């Protein structure tokens, strides 16, 4: 479906905050979420860096991408973001200088942050209205910041017993919370929780969609999707694959999670 529906769909305007979160859903910007989130301050620095790189890059992508040959876009975007990072560094350094020691090269690497580059290079913002690009920049930065703060909020107290520099009382301390593997595992759990919530949302949305079947809005939606009918047929044709396999799966490995979650959701 075209990106016009994306914009019309109010839900997808504010994409990137939770739905389509750049880190949890798309797996972009993992290095920063994993390594550089040892403290809330570093998370804040990275979030600010993300914001002030995403805004100019998305604006450039929306305004003058069509004047740049495709293969040069990456160069331009990376240079723009790197240029945007330099004044910010001066500003932030005056606020909390100690953070940049813990960040090391990762602040400079924000110039190549995939969470900025990939959406900018895709059709998400290329050639769209600058307002939409700006909105996207804000949403993506917000989503990025949410994840970073979420991970840092666990790692800083557990690792160093402080929150935003202030010491807090927690029962146990675990120095390895500062290590990379702990960040990976935390990120994995965050992403798992994200996927779970996503599925819940989808099930609820389905139920609502059933009610809205013959309202104007849903009809407009259906017109926008030309091949929904053929999809239905395809699915019907494929059911014969499912049946036996499902039965076998139930019998062979006693995993009946499908039914479990589904029933629970649909009863709600």
């Amino acid at each position, binding site marked *: 479906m075209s990106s016009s529906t994306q914009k019309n769909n109010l839900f997808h305007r504010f994409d990137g905050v939770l739905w389509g979160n750049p880190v949890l859903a798309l797996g972009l910007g993992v290095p920063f979420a994993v390594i550089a989130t040892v403290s809330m301050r570093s998370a804040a620095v990275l979030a600010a860096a993300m914001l002030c790189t995403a805004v100019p890059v998305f604006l450039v992508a929306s305004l003058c991408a069509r004047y740049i040959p495709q293969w040069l876009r990456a160069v331009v975007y990376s240079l723009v973001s790197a240029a945007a990072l330099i004044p910010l560094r001066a500003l932030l350094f005056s606020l909390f200088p100690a953070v940049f020691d813990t960040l090391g090269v990762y602040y400079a690497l924000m110039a190549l942050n995939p969470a900025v580059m990939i959406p900018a290079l895709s059709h998400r913002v290329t050639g769209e209205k600058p307002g939409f690009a700006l909105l996207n920049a804000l949403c993506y930065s917000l989503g990025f910041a949410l994840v970073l703060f979420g991970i840092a909020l666990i790692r800083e107290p557990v690792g160093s017993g402080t929150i935003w520099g202030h010491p807090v009382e927690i029962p*146990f301390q*675990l*120095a*390895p919370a500062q*290590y990379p*593997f702990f960040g990976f*595992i935390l990120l*994995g759990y965050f992403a*798992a929780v994200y996927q779970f919530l996503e599925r819940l949302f989808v099930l609820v949305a389905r139920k609502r969609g059933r009610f809205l079947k013959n309202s104007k809005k849903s009809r407009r939606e259906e017109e926008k999707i030309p091949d929904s009918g053929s999809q239905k047929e395809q699915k019907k044709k494929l059911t014969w694959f499912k049946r036996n396999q499902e039965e076998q799966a139930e*019998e062979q490995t*006693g*995993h*009946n*999670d499908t039914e*479990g*979650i589904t029933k629970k959701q649909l009863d709600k």
Partner: protein
Amino acid sequence: MKEFIPISKAHKTPKRSLTNRKPLILLSKDSSNAMMGDVVIAMLPLLVMACYFYGTRPLMVALWSVAACKLADSVCCLIARHKLMLGDLSPMVTGLVIAMLLPASVPYYIPVAAGLFAILVVKQPFGGTGNNLFNPAAAGFAFAAVCWPQTIFRYPQPMERMEAAGPVTVRLLEGSAYTLKLGGIPSIDWQELLLGNFAGPMGATHILVMATCLIFLLARKTADWRIPLGFISVAAVFSFFFARIPTSPLNSIYFELFSGSVIFTAIYMVTDPVTAPKTGWGRFVYGGLAGLLTMLFRYYGGFEQGGMFAVLVCNALSFSLDRCFISAKESVRRVYGELVNAKK
């Protein structure tokens, strides 16, 4: 001969009275849970030895880790809506392996944390029993080693009794593997080394007992002989040629293998059927690779024991090993078939 029961009565409701699941009389005698039970049985002597050396505290350590593993496993099964099998012994194996690698003087929160990590991070996210990619016990012990190195690698002297509850007052020593890492020769004579009568992990030092257990496991076909063979042989060859202590090569083999937890790793951690390769040659290569990596980790790694890390790395490789051996076999068969056809 008894009187006939007209079968029509038996089939008023066919679906209920007849099943399409084979009766066990037509299937193999032993079950997968029995295989786990074999490993547990093979580990009980080590626990007994530990209790003999250190008093009742090892028992408590084992209980804590097993309880943590089992509880976490059951809770995860409930959450994931799997079939909850309370009789499943694999978390018990995980807990026991973790406990056996720890020193007897370890505070109780460490086995609990290691067990929780093993189940919640390594085992259940990947699908629970039978689906885990990494050996949970190895990962749990690696986690503990990374988190509390000073506590994990300082061992009490044997025959110093410790109370199950209360603080540990005994004197803690460095393990013999640490002595090797420093380049020194551990001053332990050979019977004590074989009997495990020296400061070390509470279950992983009793070489003779473990050898007996290995024979038991091999006889029950619970452990594949290729994996320990490859592991120990490669480790021995490596320590023969690259001795890091100024002794004769044979002495080097002797100390490298019998200090630390090399033999325990070879018997209980690498042979885990879930994470090991399935093809015969794959198992052999897997064992050899694990042995090599173990020695490399011991030599150059940041910790005095490297078995758990080596096992993790090899688990990541086991699927690839199987794939390449299977495809090699397939291609050989194809070429052979073409040759036969060409002859005809």
